[in-house]
């Protein structure tokens, strides 16, 4: 790829602003990786806003994390693209808050932005054909020294490890395992459940809980909490559940901080050597 070329030419036909941000990120990736991350984060934010305005109704959150969450829950952004967009958001935020971005990290996110861009084009213009060529990493302005090459390798290994840990966290939270055939499992469980239902019905067991469950569901939460029979329990349950949920959220946030610290540690090591 020559200096005049870019991986993101195709984007111009679909969204000029997103294309401009992508090209700027590409330009900065070697010389100023923090700025590259700013641009990529802004690019993702611009994409998210466009997708939200095109495909969602109601109040739109201004927070990028919440916006991506809504798009993902609404089935507009598939999981793989959402993961990449969140990764760019996190690393972009870290750069904004002064955590230095290594070149290999910025390059990794640029590559992800390239893949997201292809998908984005197909969403904003239905039926459009976008064939992505292989991503060509921009060349550094000057050849890398042996030390820089070694450092980049170390960062790449760290990034791989962070990626694996993030995937493990994500997969641990999901209902199905990564190796499971969800359709097949669903079919099998449904079949079994219907069979059990038939057996219960044949045995004369009515769905006795139906009225009761409907009653509970029809009640407002506040009314249940005010009920002296259940009020204490529900308030206690809320306190306990909130605490437990906060612990998990804190654990997940701490993990992300650890990833950043590991990266910063490597950056400092390099600075010490240089």
């Amino acid at each position: 790829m020559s200096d005049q070329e870019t991986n993101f030419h195709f984007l111009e036909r679909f969204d000029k602003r997103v294309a401009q941000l992508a090209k700027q990120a590409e330009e900065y990736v070697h010389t100023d990786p923090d700025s590259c991350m700013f641009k990529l984060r802004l690019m993702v934010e611009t994409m998210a806003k466009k997708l939200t305005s095109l495909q969602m109704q109601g109040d739109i959150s201004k927070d990028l994390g919440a916006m991506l969450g809504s798009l993902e829950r609404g089935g507009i952004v598939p999981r793989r693209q959402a993961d990449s967009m969140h990764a760019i958001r996190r690393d972009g935020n870290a750069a904004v808050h002064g955590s230095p971005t290594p070149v290999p990290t910025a390059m990794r996110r640029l590559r992800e932005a390239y893949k997201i861009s292809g998908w984005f084009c197909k969403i904003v213009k239905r039926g459009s054909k976008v064939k992505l060529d292989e991503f060509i990493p921009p060349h550094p302005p000057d050849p890398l020294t042996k030390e820089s090459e070694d450092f980049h390798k170390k960062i790449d290994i760290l990034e791989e490890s962070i990626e694996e840990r993030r995937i493990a966290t994500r997969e641990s939270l999901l209902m199905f395992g990564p190796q499971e055939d969800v359709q097949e499992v669903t079919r099998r469980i449904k079949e079994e459940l219907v069979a059990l239902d038939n057996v219960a019905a044949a045995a004369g067991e009515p769905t006795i809980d139906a009225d009761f469950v409907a009653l509970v569901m029809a009640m407002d939460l506040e009314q249940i909490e005010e009920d002296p029979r259940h009020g204490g329990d529900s308030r206690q349950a809320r306190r306990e559940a909130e605490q437990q949920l906060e612990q998990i959220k804190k654990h997940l946030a701490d993990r992300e901080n650890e990833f950043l610290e590991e990266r910063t540690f490597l950056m400092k090591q390099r600075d010490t050597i240089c």
Partner: protein
Amino acid sequence: MSEADPIQVATLWFLSARTMAIAGEEIPSLQESATGLYAQAILGFTEDICLKAKDAAHIKNKTLIDCLSGLRQLPRELSEKILTGVMMISYSDRSMKPLEVRWASMLASAIEVSPDEFQRCCVNARVIASMLRPHGAES
């Protein structure tokens, strides 16, 4: 079943939860992630246990009868927590289909909860469902 076998317990949780989600005929992403959050935040399983519990070696050959039988053998507090979580999955879309009612009924029978205890589980499930939804328990 040994109390000290968290992978087996986690397998029972994921099987009960996904059965409720399937009974509801769709599995939105909210229910998906709520399952894991509940497993880790409320039931106290680690990431590693959650991953192993969904491994084919543990979950593939388990039938719903195995699941009901396994739940029956758990300490009461734990099985009630699982029932609460399953009801949370059911509440997350604010509607219950006949098969969801049947599965809730089968679980309640398996762990032998009284109507009052079941109602308490439902109240707690509503509380937690409202916390895990982005806009409270609203649809």
